Structures are given as C-alpha cells and as structure tokens.
C-alpha cells in the first residue's frame, strides 16, 4: 500500500484554467505538506497543515488554495494557472519533528 499517494501524476493544461491535485496518506500522521519543485530541482515549502489546521503558508499567491477535509487528506486547488506554475508538486506527511514521507509528485505543465 502506498503511504502517501497523490493524483494525478501528470496534468497538462492551458493558462487561465483551474486544476486540483489530491493527496492522501495512510500513515496516521497529523501533519501534511505541499512542496513545489522547480525545473532546477529546488524544493520549496508552500503549505503545511496539522490536524486539518493551516500552520504554514509560505507567501504563496492566493490563487493556490489548500484544503484539508480530514487529517489524512490535503488537496491543492490552483486557480487561473500561469506559465510560472509549471513545476512538480509534492505532497508529504510527518509526525511532529519527524522525517517527511513524500508522494511521487504531480507534474503540472501549463501551456
């Protein structure tokens, strides 16, 4: 069973569209994250939720809206997509202060 699973793995869309990425973890962790990895492999945290509560919001445009319906799920919705949003988005989860467990990534290409 996959510990952290995110869907879809690939998204190709036009500028201005809205898209969502879903993430689920079956590790029983309270904390979940969204990270963005750019074309140079630089990985940057976007959001973190602890037990459904937003605890980290790293100066991300408000076109990005995370939602955590329960502590096992953290979804990412992106409105009005721009070319610069093209990247690989990683979901992760952890126990407090522990190592992160990452999903396999969702590669977003905005044309």
């Amino acid at each position, binding site marked *: 069973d996959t510990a*952290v699973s995110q869907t879809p793995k690939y998204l190709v869309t036009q500028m201005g569209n809205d898209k969502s990425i879903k993430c689920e973890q079956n590790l029983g962790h309270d*904390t979940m994250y969204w990270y963005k990895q750019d074309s140079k*492999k*630089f*990985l940057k945290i976007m959001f973190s939720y602890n037990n459904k509560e937003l605890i980290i919001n790293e100066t991300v445009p408000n076109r990005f809206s995370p939602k955590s319906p329960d502590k096992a799920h953290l979804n990412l919705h992106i409105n009005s997509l721009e070319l610069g949003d093209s990247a690989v988005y*990683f979901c992760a989860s952890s126990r*407090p202060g522990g*190592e*992160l467990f990452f999903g*396999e990534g969702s590669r977003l290409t905005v044309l």
Partner: protein
Amino acid sequence: SQQGEEDPQALSIQEGENATMNCSYKTSINNLQWYRQNSGRGLVHLILIRSNEREKHSGRLRVTLDTSKKSSSLLITASRAADTASYFCATAAGDSWGKLQFGAGTQVVVTP
C-alpha cells in the same frame, strides 16, 4: 530563502568508489536531514542528525554535522549504480520543525 546549499552540484563516480557531498546552512537548526530523489520519483528520507550529534551512521551512509561551521557532509561508501540519484539536505530551524528548508541537491551518477 534557501537554507541549505549542497556542494558539489554534480558528482560522477564509478561503482565501488565513495561519494561525499556537503551541505551548508545559514541559521541555527534543530536537526538536519538528508533525502534521496531518484529521477521522476518522490524524495526518500535517508538519515536525520540532531544538532547535539556530530556523526551518525546508517548502513553505507555516514553523516557528520559541524554546527560551529554550519555544515554537514554525507558520505556514501562503496557506491552502487542504484545510488544514482539527487541528494538533498534539509534543515529544521528553532521551533519551526515543520518547515523543512531544502537545498538544490547534489546529482550523483554512479557508473558500473
């Protein structure tokens, strides 16, 4: 801003050789972690070293931490082709344990 920076950016070695990569960071940390990322995959945690530790081992991995120099090194001994991947250091500062800051990674290629 980027907290950890790995050096070198890329490393090419032959199977059986050792691979060493370094990480420097800027602020005080609670712990430093190393992750591996195979091409097209997610990151996998390798090892965590706390700020009060100086060295840690896990299998063929050896990590050192020098808080006075704000640096860490990852040594992979007797490398294998399967070790080909990008390696990232990540730091957790102060009470912001959830806010891991990653470097840009060292790309390691191990040729048979």
